[in-house]
C-alpha cells in the first residue's frame, strides 16, 4: 500500500499529516517513510531518524574527448536541452542544463563522448523507532528534483505500507511522487487559497487515475467552500484537524502532535482504515465506469 500525501500549495500541513500517520502506523505495520520533498525535506525534524546510510544521486553528463572530436556539431543539434554545443574548435558542455538522456553520445559519429557522473543530490536512510526512514536532498543550485525522487522511490517495498511526503504543487516533482501510488491524500485549508490549490491537485490526481481523499487542516478558520467543493465532486473528507494553537506550537518545535495529544493516534489509525476502504472502493468504481 503506497500512500502519497500531497497538497496544491505548501504550508497546508502535508508533513504534519504524513509524519503523524506514519508514526501512528509504525507499531502496527511494516512502515516505510519517504520524504519526497527533496527541495525542502523537513520530515526529519519530526521523525528524528538515526541515519545510517547516505548515497549520492548522479546524473550522467557528457564529457568530450577533444582529441577525437571533429567539431561536427551533431551532438548540439540533437540535444533538446541545449546542454552541449560546438563553437569553432570547442565542444562545450553545460552540466546544469543536461537531463542525462545520453542522446549526444548516441549520435556522436566518432565516439568522442563518454558519460561521467555529476552529483545533483543525495539519498539518506535510517530508522526512526519502528519506522524505516528515507529521504532525498537536492543540492542547492541544482534545478532538477525529479531524478532524485525517482531514485528514492526505487526503495519502496511493495509488500509493506509506504507513506510518501510529496512536494507541494502540481509540477513534475509532484507527478513523480504520485506516480504509482495506491492512494493520494490531499491536505488543504478551508480558505480561498486552500480551495484554489486543492482543485489543481485534484485535477492532477484524477488525471493519474489515483483514488483520493482530503484532509482539512486548521478546520475552523476561513469558511465552508472546501467542504462544498468536496461534496459536489464526491471527494471524501477523511479527517479534520482543528485550528489549534497547541498543534501549531508543537509543529513549530518539531514535535509530532499525536505524541502529545490524547486520542489522535487512534484517529490516524482510523484514517488509515478509511484510506484502505476508499482505495478499494474507488478502484472498483473506476472499473465499473470503464
Amino acid at each position, binding site marked *: 500500500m503506497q500512500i502519497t500525501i500531497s497538497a496544491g500549495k505548501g504550508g497546508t500541513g502535508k508533513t504534519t499529516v504524513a509524519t503523524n500517520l506514519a508514526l501512528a502506523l509504525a507499531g502496527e505495520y511494516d512502515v516505510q517513510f519517504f520524504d519526497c520533498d527533496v527541495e525542502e525535506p523537513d520530515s526529519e525534524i519530526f521523525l528524528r531518524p538515526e541515519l545510517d546510510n547516505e548515497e549520492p544521486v548522479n546524473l550522467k553528463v557528457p564529457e568530450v574527448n577533444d582529441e577525437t572530436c571533429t567539431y561536427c556539431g551533431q551532438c*548540439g543539434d540533437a540535444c533538446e*536541452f541545449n*546542454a552541449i*554545443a560546438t563553437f569553432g574548435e570547442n565542444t*562545450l558542455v*553545460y552540466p*546544469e542544463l543536461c537531463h542525462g538522456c545520453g542522446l549526444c553520445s548516441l549520435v556522436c559519429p566518432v565516439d568522442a563522448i563518454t558519460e561521467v557522473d555529476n552529483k545533483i543530490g543525495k539519498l539518506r536512510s535510517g530508522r526512526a523507532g519502528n519506522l524505516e526512514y528515507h529521504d532525498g536532498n537536492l543540492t542547492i543550485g541544482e*534545478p532538477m528534483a525529479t531524478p532524485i525522487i525517482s531514485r528514492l522511490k526505487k526503495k519502496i517495498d511493495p509488500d509493506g505500507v509506504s507513506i510518501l511526503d510529496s512536494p507541494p504543487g502540481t509540477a513534475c516533482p509532484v507527478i513523480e511522487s504520485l506516480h504509482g501510488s495506491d492512494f493520494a491524500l490531499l491536505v488543504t485549508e478551508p480558505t480561498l487559497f486552500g480551495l484554489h490549490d486543492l482543485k489543481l491537485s485534484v485535477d492532477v490526481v484524477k488525471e493519474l487515475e489515483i483514488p483520493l481523499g482530503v484532509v482539512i487542516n486548521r478546520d475552523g478558520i476561513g469558511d465552508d467552500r472546501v467542504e462544498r467543493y468536496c461534496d459536489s465532486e464526491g471527494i471524501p473528507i477523511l479527517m479534520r484537524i482543528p485550528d489549534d494553537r497547541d498543534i501549531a506550537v508543537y509543529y513549530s518545535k518539531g514535535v509530532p502532535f499525536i505524541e502529545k495529544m490524547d486520542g489522535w493516534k487512534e484517529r490516524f489509525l482510523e484514517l488509515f482504515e478509511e484510506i484502505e476502504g476508499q482505495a478499494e472502493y474507488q478502484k472498483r468504481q473506476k472499473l465499473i465506469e470503464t
Partner: protein
Amino acid sequence: MKIAITSLGEELSSGVDGRFGRCDYFVIVDPESLDYEAISNGSKNAVGGAGVEAAQTVAGSGVSAVITGNVGPNAYRALSSAGVDIYTGASGTVQDAIDDFNDDNLSLTQSSTTRGGRGKRRR
C-alpha cells in the same frame, strides 16, 4: 566584417533588446556599408539554454562581434569559444549601437554580465 546586434525589431531604427538569449531579433550588419539583414531569434522560447542556442545562431552567421545589453555566463562561454567579441551595455536604437561601435565607444566585455537563468556561479 559583420556584427550582430540584439534587437526588438527588424530595422536599424528598432530598439536594442537588452537580452541576448531571449531577444526578439538579431540584426546582422556590416558597420561600414550598413548593409543589414534581420534574423528572428528561434531560441527566444527555448526550454532552457536559450543563451547557448542563440550563441550558435549568431556564431553560425559568421559575425565577429555581438552588441547587446547583458550576456549570461553560458552564452559568454559559448561566444568566447567561437571567437566572437562581446560588447554589452548597449541601449537606444540599433543605429545608435552601430555608431557607438564605429566610434569605439563600446567596451569589450571580459565576463558575463548577468547571473543568467540557470547558470551556475563560477567559483
